[in-house]
């Protein structure tokens, strides 16, 4: 079997194109994390997550700064949410985390309102001030209940 320059070139191009496609799927579409200390983990406890899912966005002023890593139930039956945010962010310790909805029926996401304290949150810290998700059914239920009570009085 002898070398065939043209064929070898084509095979090389094929392998490169295939690996390029794999790289595009992994890096651009699949957003593989490169590891390293680029993210910092923060924790926040909520009474109601209203269907927040792992990998949901974490935003400040509508700009994505991280994502929800995990949601677990703690001993006091509150939702214990871990969020990974950009490690370069300097967040004061009086930052508030609230669960919001994109649109009326859209996906849940976590919104951070930055506070004014001089002390900064360190990786692994707990965000103490949280605002739970608003569950639409409960709001409607309260509205109907309130209207009924108003009528009976």
């Amino acid at each position, binding site marked *: *079997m002898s*070398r065939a320059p043209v*064929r*070898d070139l*084509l*095979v090389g*191009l*094929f*392998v490169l*194109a*295939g*690996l390029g*496609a*794999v790289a*595009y*799927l*992994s890096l*651009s*579409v*699949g*957003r*593989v*994390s490169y590891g390293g200390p680029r993210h910092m983990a923060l924790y926040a406890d909520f009474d109601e997550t209203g269907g927040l899912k792992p*990998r949901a*966005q974490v935003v400040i002023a509508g700009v994505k700064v991280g994502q929800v890593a995990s949601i677990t139930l703690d001993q006091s039956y509150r939702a214990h949410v871990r969020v990974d945010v950009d490690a370069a962010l300097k967040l004061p310790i009086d930052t508030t985390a609230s669960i919001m909805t994109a649109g009326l029926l859209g996906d849940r996401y976590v919104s951070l309102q930055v506070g004014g304290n001089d002390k900064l949150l360190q990786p692994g810290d707990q965000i103490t001030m949280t605002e739970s998700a608003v569950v639409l059914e409960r709001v409607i239920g309260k509205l109907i209940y309130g209207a009924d009570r108003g009528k009976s009085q």
Partner: protein
Amino acid sequence: MNAIRDLGWAAVRFVADLGGLARFGAQIGRAALSPPVRARLFVDELFKLGVLSLVIICVCGLAVGMVLSLQGYTTLVRFGAEQSLGAVVGLSLIRELGPVLTALLATGRAGSATTAEIGTMVATEQLDALRMMSVDPIDLVATPRALAMTAAMPLLSALFIVCGLFGGYLVGVGLMGVDPGSYMSSLRSAVDFRDDVLGSLLKALIFGVLVGLIATYRGHTAVPTSAGVGAATTSTVVVASVSVLIFDYFITALWGV
């Protein structure tokens, strides 16, 4: 009585076939791991199985992505969720259609050719000639082809998916007027690297092993007549296609890929 005997014979043949395939696979595995490394033959086969399948894979990927986008849009627009078109096209291509359709296309395009080639070698007693020279035909003929199929399948599948995503983008954004930003952002937020992309590549790799093994085995065990080679080629396409689809179900069910 005769019917039961036929059934028994069919069952025995099936099990014997399965055993033969497993033994053949083990021999290929041993030949692949032990020297000599036949890199030149491997590149040769990669050219035939990979490069020559490139056009059909890209054209089919483009067409599938375009029709997926069209169908997805007409369904999603009923729920007012056409912004999620990127996620629908991306997830169906990456998780399911990419590896499976690539495996089916490669079976028809490259698997059948491999079987016919090896089968003709059997029919013209070329493999016997190799044995006469004490060259193992599995090492020289079957192994490079099976390995090349295994290596080419994930690459072809990834190219199929990228072409499909491009086709879906063309139709969704260009024809249907979905916002380009929301197409890409819904695609990116829906696709996970470990769950979806790695799973897709793993699926393609398993299909590559399956198709490569079946194609070379069928060629190797072909009845040495022209009718026998034809039957072996048909059998490769049927058996490989069916087993790809069956394995696809079990891979998805077991590993949630």
